[in-house]
């Protein structure tokens, strides 16, 4: 599989705090790559840099050969970012929100219609899409946002804690949606501190702690290497070392 995202020696600090201390990883075409680690490990900062929201202090990030610093406009056309605590515009209806977002990516009206139709299918909110977002539950908003992120079939979907704050049923639905979209050629870079979710979703994972990547591999490889039953145990053993 072709590598679409290359992250090399990434450093970022906020004042005196070093959030990233030389991060390296790659994401391949059509895979789900996950960053796992505790709160404050540097997952969100990494995703924000890839999503062109933050500038790195040092290091390079390249998506399909485009540099995140120099070609941020080009990169924004290829990515779709779902922040951990994202919201949608409360005064718009669900369908208006999807239309609003689709119009940024579509080359013409026909393509915009395709995006919106796909968005409606992913969100699966039925008639509620005609209601204002302000009336939605947290789970409905999250599904709408995920639909927004995936409907345009980005080269890379960047999902920060995609099931954050959702109940079991909604979390399962969201995971199924993500899995099904990878089959259609979308690559996913996601972060989570829910190790079981990552084990279910990801093709490969990087364990990150204190701004550094400690280990990278498939969940199976990591479990074998650290003689563990699940990723939680793997994480505990790596951190203990």
């Amino acid at each position, binding site marked *: 599989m072709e590598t679409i995202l290359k992250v090399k020696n990434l450093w970022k600090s906020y004042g005196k705090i070093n959030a990233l201390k030389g991060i390296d990883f790659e994401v391949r075409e059509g895979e789900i790559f996950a960053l796992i680690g505790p709160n404050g490990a540097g997952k969100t900062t990494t995703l*924000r840099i890839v999503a062109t929201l933050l500038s790195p202090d040092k290091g390079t990030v390249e998506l399909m050969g485009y540099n995140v610093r120099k070609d941020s406009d080009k990169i924004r056309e290829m990515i779709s970012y779902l*922040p951990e605590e*994202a919201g949608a515009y409360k*005064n718009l209806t669900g369908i208006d929100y999807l239309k609003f977002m689709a119009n940024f990516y579509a080359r013409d009206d026909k393509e915009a219609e395709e995006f919106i139709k796909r968005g409606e299918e992913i969100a699966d909110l039925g008639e509620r899409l005609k209601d204002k977002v302000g009336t939605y539950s947290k789970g409905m908003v999250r599904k709408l946002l995920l639909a927004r992120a995936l409907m345009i079939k980005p080269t890379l979907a960047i999902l920060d804690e995609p099931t954050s704050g959702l109940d079991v049923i909604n979390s399962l639905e969201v995971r199924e949606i993500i899995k099904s979209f990878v089959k259609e050629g979308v690559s996913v870079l996601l972060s989570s501190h829910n190790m079981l979710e990552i084990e279910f979703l990801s093709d490969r994972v990087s364990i990150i702690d204190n701004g550094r990547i400690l280990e990278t591999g498939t969940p199976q490889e990591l479990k074998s290497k650290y003689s563990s039953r699940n990723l939680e145990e793997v994480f505990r053993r790596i951190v203990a070392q």
Partner: protein
Amino acid sequence: MKKFINLLKKEIKELITIQLIVSLVFTIVLFYFIGNIARSEMGKVQGAKDIYVLNLDNSDLSGEILRNLAFANFRINLLEIKDKTLAIDNARKNNIPLLLVIPEGFADSISSFQPKEIETYVLIRSFSMGSSINSELVNQIIVSINNYLSDNILKTKVPNISPSVLKNPIKNKSFIVIKDRIAEGSISDVNNFVVSQSIFIPIILMMVLVFSSQMVLSAIAMEKQDKTLETLLTVPISRNYIVMAKMVASGLVGLVSAGIYMIGFRFYMGGFMGNVPSSTQINEVVQKLNLRFTPNSYVLLGISLFLAILCALALATILGVLAEDLKSAQSASFPLMFLVLIPYFLTIISDINSLSPSLKALVLAIPFTHPFLASQNLMLGNYSIVLYGILYMLAVFIVLVFIAGRIFSTDRVLTMKLRFGRKFRS
């Protein structure tokens, strides 16, 4: 451009909320209601007013006073009672608003130069405009009669000299000079005329500036509070377009809101002021002094107002980035409000040219000072000052937009925060 229009539509939809519409409708209704009440009160004051008179004199002179009162639109109600105390009691019991008592022997006392006093009783039920205006009118009539009487006496005693010369031996004429134009007239009348012509300009300007800047501040703060900003910053649209869409939408909604408030305000002020026509005399003075807005003046005033709005929007955009949510957006708007209110009040209460040079420079450095000064300067024909103001505001706007664009194109838009609250807490 299609993406910009898409963004602009969204911004306008987000700003025009039910709360905003309800607030605007409520304000219009409230102003209209208060204006109508005021108009009706003023109508009562200007219409025929009842005055009850206890005339204990019944002389030609007291008859003259009553005729003058009737001429001044008072309805004369002569009391049958012949006792002052009873008349006052009667007035109390029957809610009589105005009672005039002309004492017995009043005319004779005037002839013998030992005048008795006319007494006016105003029965107050509320401190409304009507009660004080009625009493003032009676006093003015008495002053006129005093003049009439003293003139008659002077004519009798010194028949060869005009009473007005005797009473006012020094005569004067007032002239107003503006540049090479000169006209005879009262400066206070001209001032009143200019104020009546341009009073709405600073009020409109202040309202538009305040509304538009609060709109843009709220728009950015809402993006942060509702966690939509991060997503918006990752969509494929220029960050400058994001800034511009917010500014244009806020400017438009702010302009419409201020317009609606101004309509309400006109209802309100119309109730108090009515339509006072300017006299022919003042019109002649104004004509001679050329104190009129020309089409060019209107164009320059429009440009000045427009640039002030743009400066306010750009500054509010920068301040909006500092706000984390709607609450902190209110704190962030204070510096801007001060910058608008300082020149607003200064232009109303003082002459900026009379300030010390350093203070004057400081006030002129505030971009919003220039449109407040523009209307008066245009009337006075000081076009160059207005043009300098326009150029200065344009320069300030370019700098502010550049700063706003830089902030939005870097990660400062996410990392800059208002720290005042934390400093106070610590």
